[in-house]
């Protein structure tokens, strides 16, 4: 087995294959059983399981271990409640714009303005409720919405973009009301990775899994960075070398006029741009220090008199410009600022200095100026990201305050006290059909494909469904779910038999995309009425465990049936119809 260092290097390699990444993650998690653990829940309206893999990767690279729980499909409120109850402290919410409604981007132009407004109001209410339920969590990371389709060039602004911008403003507005909610800019991720490699259209159409690995990798990297490695680091000061780091050349030899710092030519503009990034950091509350082997007067001259120096004396908190070794100087800087050495980031152009600091002070984060100078501005930006990802700047704080005031001014039209009140606003309807021949193929398909919400995993061919439909003592129920935003289609099946005095439920299954709103409970009163009409006096049903249906192991308990016996994990339930009346679900209208 490879050692930890090798595996970490393998994991950190850009463009590593999924196989190598998975192997390295598994190996490292086995070798590092005792490191700090972070529990992360993921909630989305599309399949993003691979995000869990990449969160584990980047958490390992930050020296900790992530345990990931995947939520239900499109159930942010339910997921949040569950995560909070399970003591999960971090949550990633990833709404996917095109799947807010099926093929939303293609449909927006066909929808009425009122329908779009209604969807926005519903989302606002739902997110607000989810954020409110998430108060016990340490941190919620919520991704902004982004485009899936590339806009068509029609000479006018794209209407889909207009809706997207509105929804994003609303999302940020809602998020700003909650101190533990942090917005992640997914459009930046998309821009970085590039749309052609960000999406996998095959898996979006087949499995509602729109993202390819590179997008989720970069997203996970940003989340773990924004979380400062989940408490792994907290940088406060940037320590800068001077010659060939803040300017080109050596001020002691090239003199004040000879160093390269001209914004209008190469290579001066590289250093000038880099200084812009560092100055911005200072403005955002990061301490800048100098650590340079130079005559102090030469460096002072640049800061005070060079016409193009962005950094001035006032930017610098501590300067160690002398001929001492850099390790001693870094120690002195940390002491003077009264912060730990692990709060320092150090940047220098010299191989020798960088490796000396790395080996003597491994807790200091060291960056070397790239030997290919055009890469330097990008590195400076990365360093800035490292400091700011945690999001503590004054500017963003005042923005937050503004958002909060705005939010208070907004009419409370979208306010719901409870999840039930929200569900009631959805106008949920369930149509329960009996022996519906036109749906035969879809019913059979659902029994073949459903794995998770499936009590007995009884697979039925179309012919077998046909037999049941034709049989007088059997009924095939099919459930069609809709709400005021549209139709989710035929998404539930119950196969019942009337055996004298016993109503037997051979199968009950639902598509995962509709559960969590009470749909799975709402139709039982109607089904029991049928049973009584058939002369039944009791109902019997089984739960058969498979590798994939643990989530419904206690479903019949929750419905209110009594557990009669259990053998080999198979649970037999029963209830007398005289004493069993499941509560109707008030917010769902059941039609027959």
């Amino acid at each position, binding site marked *: 087995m490879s050692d930890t260092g090798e595996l970490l290097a393998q994991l950190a390699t850009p463009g590593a*294959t*999924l196989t190598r990444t*998975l192997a390295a993650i*598994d190996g490292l998690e086995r070798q590092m059983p005792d490191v700090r653990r972070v529990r992360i829940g993921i909630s989305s309206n599309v399949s993003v399981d*691979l995000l869990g*893999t990449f969160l584990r990767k980047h958490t390992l690279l930050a020296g900790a271990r992530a345990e990931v729980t995947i939520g239900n499909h499109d159930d942010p409120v339910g997921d949040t409640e569950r995560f909070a109850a399970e003591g999960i402290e971090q949550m990633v919410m990833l709404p996917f714009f095109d799947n807010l409604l099926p093929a939303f981007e293609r449909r927006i132009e066909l929808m009425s303005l009122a329908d779009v407004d209604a969807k926005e109001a519903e989302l606002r209410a739902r997110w607000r409720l989810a954020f409110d339920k998430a108060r016990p969590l340490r941190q919620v990371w919520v991704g902004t919405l982004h485009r899936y389709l590339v806009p068509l060039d029609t000479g006018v602004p794209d209407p889909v973009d207009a809706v997207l911008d509105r929804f994003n403003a609303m999302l940020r507005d809602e998020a700003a009301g909650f101190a533990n909610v942090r917005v992640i800019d997914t459009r930046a991720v998309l821009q970085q990775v590039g749309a052609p490699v960000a999406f996998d259209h*095959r898996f979006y159409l*087949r499995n509602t899994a729109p993202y*390819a690995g590179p997008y989720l990798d970069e997203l996970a990297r940003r989340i773990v960075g924004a979380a400062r490695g989940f408490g792994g680091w907290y940088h406060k000061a940037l320590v800068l070398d001077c010659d060939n780091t803040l300017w080109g050349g050596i001020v002691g030899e090239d003199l004040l006029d000879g160093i390269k710092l001209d914004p209008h030519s190469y290579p001066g503009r590289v250093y000038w741009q880099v200084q812009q990034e560092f100055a911005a950091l200072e403005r955002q509350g990061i301490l800048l220090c100098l650590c340079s082997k130079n005559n102090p007067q030469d460096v002072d001259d640049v800061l005070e008199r060079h016409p193009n120096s962005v950094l001035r004396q006032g930017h610098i908190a501590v300067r160690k410009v002398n001929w001492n070794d850099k390790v001693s100087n870094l120690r002195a800087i940390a002491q003077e600022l009264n912060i730990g050495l692990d709060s320092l980031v150090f940047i220098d152009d010299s191989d020798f200095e960088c490796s000396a600091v790395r080996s003597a002070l491994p807790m200091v984060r060291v960056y070397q100026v790239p030997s290919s100078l055009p890469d330097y501005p990008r590195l400076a930006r990365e360093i800035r990201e490292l400091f700011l990802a945690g999001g503590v700047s004054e500017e963003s704080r005042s923005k937050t305050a503004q958002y909060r005031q705005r939010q208070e001014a907004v009419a409370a039209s979208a306010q719901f006290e409870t999840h039930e009140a929200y569900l009631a606003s959805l106008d949920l309807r369930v149509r329960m059909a009996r022996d519906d021949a036109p749906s035969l193929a879809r019913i059979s398909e659902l029994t073949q494909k459903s794995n998770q919400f499936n009590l007995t995993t009884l697979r039925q061919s179309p012919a077998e469904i046909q037999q049941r439909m034709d049989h007088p003592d059997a009924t095939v129920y099919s459930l069609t779910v809709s709400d005021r935003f549209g139709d989710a289609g035929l998404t539930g099946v119950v196969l019942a038999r009337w055996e004298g005095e016993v109503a037997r439920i051979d199968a009950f299954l639902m598509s995962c995309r509709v559960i969590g709103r009470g749909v799975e409970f709402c139709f039982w009163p109607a089904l029991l009425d049928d049973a009584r009409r058939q002369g039944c006096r009791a109902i019997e049903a089984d739960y058969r465990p498979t590798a994939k249906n643990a989530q419904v192991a206690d479903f019949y308990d929750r419905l209110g049936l009594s557990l009669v016996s259990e053998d080999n994990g198979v649970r037999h339930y029963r209830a007398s119809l005289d004493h069993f009346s499941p509560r109707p679900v008030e917010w769902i209208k059941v039609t027959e």
Partner: protein
Amino acid sequence: MSMEQTLKDVMAVVLGVPAESIGEDTSMDTVKSWDSIKHMNLVLALEEEFGVAIPDEDAANITSYPLIRVVLAEQLQGK
């Protein structure tokens, strides 16, 4: 390394089972961890590892070791 061995190694990592356990009767029905999510990862991993693009129809249908071997052989021949 032979194509078969690389294939087994990829499947082992993605599905989280020992490579030695993979054989002619390995399929979505016999491997508990092989669900639709793992299947997507498997297709992506195989495409990366072998440098091929598995056609969409095949991607959905290669749910056993022998079937994957057949489709990969076809793709590698076409390269």
